[in-house]
């Protein structure tokens, strides 16, 4: 187990370092000067030069890379060129939107998908199964931003139950802040639930055909008990894998939904930072998100250990 952890930790550090090199090199090639963008068309060359100096952009690329990495090692993410505030502060505000949104979406999609998928598997070939899989097929094809716009038109414009977008901030209270996240979370969760329910159904179908389920039924266990005690737990590995992938996507790949709902999340921060050439923010976010994906994958692996003792035996070798 310790060897396993060390292996993963080394992997994490190497991957993160590679991410820093790649993102830094890519941003060097990208045309566009953050200082010129801040000052726009009326600025004189000496003013742009003064701002470049203030931002530290007049140093060589190597020095800037070194300074950035040295900062990261000490936990200092640097100062945003555009916003002139510490990047850590900027990211912390966005994390407070993106992480709750991702968690809410995953909870919603899992809560919908697993019972529905298991039900479809148990009713295989019957009307319920056909109906569920038909809806799921539709859900897979549903673009989440379109669903978002529909939800806004319905629950914000026609029946104003929720705000049409924006985020009031957690300091205004738990419920006012959560209200802002419900429609976006639904828009993200429903298409994901569609995918997840299909995965659940096929995984459960596979385990239902296994010998141990037949044995359980033969020794007199009811169909429902055999399903929940034996078939479902053994079907969870592919399901957890998909949940892990979906969670990684939700952390940063939600820029379109954030735009539709005008939410200040991580996705929009990355997008804005690239357009405004807020290079330091782009660098930090790429590294942070790479780290988050690695950590999520690690948690998924840990979940495997819990779900299937055979894996843990191998890991302990």
């Amino acid at each position: 187990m310790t060897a396993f952890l060390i292996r993963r930790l080394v992997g994490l550090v190497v991957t993160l370092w590679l991410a820093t090199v790649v993102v830094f090199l890519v941003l060097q090639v990208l045309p566009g000067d953050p200082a010129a963008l801040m000052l726009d068309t009326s600025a004189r060359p000496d003013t742009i030069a003064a701002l470049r100096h203030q931002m530290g952009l007049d140093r060589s690329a190597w020095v800037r890379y070194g300074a950035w990495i040295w900062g990261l090692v000490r936990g200092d993410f640097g100062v945003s060129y555009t916003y002139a505030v510490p990047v850590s502060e900027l990211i912390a505000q966005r994390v407070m939107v993106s992480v709750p949104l991702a968690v809410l979406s995953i909870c919603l999609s899992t809560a919908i998908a697993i019972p529905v998928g298991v039900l479809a598997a148990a009713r295989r070939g019957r009307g319920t199964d056909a109906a569920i899989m038909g809806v799921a097929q539709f859900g897979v094809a549903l673009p989440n931003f379109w669903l978002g716009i529909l939800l806004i038109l319905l629950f914000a414009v026609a029946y104003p139950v929720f705000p049409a977008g924006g985020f009031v901030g957690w300091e205004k209270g738990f419920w006012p802040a959560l209200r802002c996240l419900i429609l976006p979370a639904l828009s993200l969760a429903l298409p994901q639930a569609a995918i997840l329910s299909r995965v659940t159904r096929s995984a459960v179908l596979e385990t239902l055909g296994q010998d141990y389920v037949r044995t359980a039924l033969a020794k007199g266990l009811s169909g429902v008990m055999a399903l929940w005690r034996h078939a479902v737990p053994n079907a969870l590995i592919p399901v957890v894998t998909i949940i892990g992938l979906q969670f990684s996507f939700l952390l940063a790949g939600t820029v379109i939904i954030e735009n539709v709902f005008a939410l200040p999340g991580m996705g929009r921060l990355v997008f804005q930072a690239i357009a405004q050439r807020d290079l330091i923010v782009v660098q930090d976010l790429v590294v942070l998100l790479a780290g988050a994906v690695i950590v999520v994958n690690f948690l998924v692996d840990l979940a495997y250990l819990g779900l299937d003792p055979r894996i843990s035996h191998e890991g302990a070798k």
Partner: protein
Amino acid sequence: MNRILATLLATTILAGPAFAAKDSITLGMPLEPPVLDPTAGAAAAIKEVTYANIFQGLTRIAADGTVAPQLAKSWTISADGLTYTFALNSGVKFHDGAAFDCSVVKFTYERAVATDSTNSQKGFFEPIATTACPDPLTAVVTLRRATGDFLFNMGAGDAVMISPATAATNKTNPVGTGPFAFKRWIKGDRVELERFAGYWGPAPKLASAVFRFIADPSAATAAVMAGDLDAFPLFPAAESLDTIRKDKRFAVVIGTTQGKTIMSINNERAPFTDVRVRRALAHAIDRAALIDALGGNGKVIGSHYVPGRTGYIDLTGAYPYDPAKAQKLLAEAGVKPGTEMTLKLPPPVYARRGGEVIAAMLEQVGIKAKLVPVEWAQWLGPVFADSDFDLTIISHVEPNDLGIYARDKYYFNYKDQAYRSLYTRYNESNDPALRLDLVQQLQRKLSEDEPNVFLFALAKTGVWNAKLTGLWENQPIFANDLSGVAWAE
């Protein structure tokens, strides 16, 4: 049933609706300001939040585009146009309690021209030789050379008064002398302001204001329709305007801006060095059709000057839409049919969609326009800084910017001595009659040389609650001045 359910949900979920007279406003803006210090960045959004609300200058630009007193209650100008004596208002305080007097004026202007200044309009302050304080409420500004636009420039967002104590922190915690004080900023979502109790002038009607940042056109429409926003002064979704017009709750107000939308031409690159080619391009574009394709709200212009400004003359008839004439001029200049030109398009709709329309029109006269969409960063770098382009579409939004045609180095490379001397005379004159004559000559000269193809003046499309009064209909400068905004009973 659905309606009942929704109503039930609404009444249980919503916090008690406020029936008291409304004294707050929530405005939508397409872009978020990067910082909140108008002297530290060029982004229009900075001024749209802070100008006249948080920060004030010695003079101010009023809704009609004229110069009005603000922190200076009056001024005199010496006969040679070199010495401006400002009488300052007394009892003016910054939001942190610091007093405003002449020392602040001196600090502000000297800071703006310092070597390490990052003021994007440093040029406004460059004519200032000295700022002297004979007494705390009198500021005497001496110029190196007469500058006709000096009072206008000192009313710009870039010239607002900055307290020495807070100069370094204004980017994130702005402290000014205006009727509203900064409360908080949720980055990516909103900036909140509240009425400043110690304001020196008449107290504003509004107790608080929120600026929300919504770039996506459909999100903007939804926020307006849902009543989440009271006003969207620069509404980004032209295609939703008809729906909003039908709704009695809202007023749709089409006003003017200072945006001169032009197809810029690289005057140093062949074949554009030949005036016949530039005139041919002007004849090849049907401006009315272009405006229609972009929503129908712009106004055709014939020079680098917008209708409504003092001294505007109508030169829109100089190059009527005439493809045959365009082809003839091109042939005379030796430009063969099928010649390829690149047309670089920055992100705004007028450029991206407008570029496609213009490319189709140019094809009619035998020019193949290769459309190259670029981000702002790529426009400011290669196109603007390095003049690496044939043609591009851009709206020049600064007021009074005839001077860009007189610069030694400016991206479209128009270098004409006659224009330059004309502009110098205009710039250094304080005589209104002479300035009027010269500004008309400048417009004519540009129309004649057609260094760029002048297309149309950008319209300002505002949407707000029909009960709101006092918002600016037009946009003489970038601002959302809330000092006179109120809710009608």
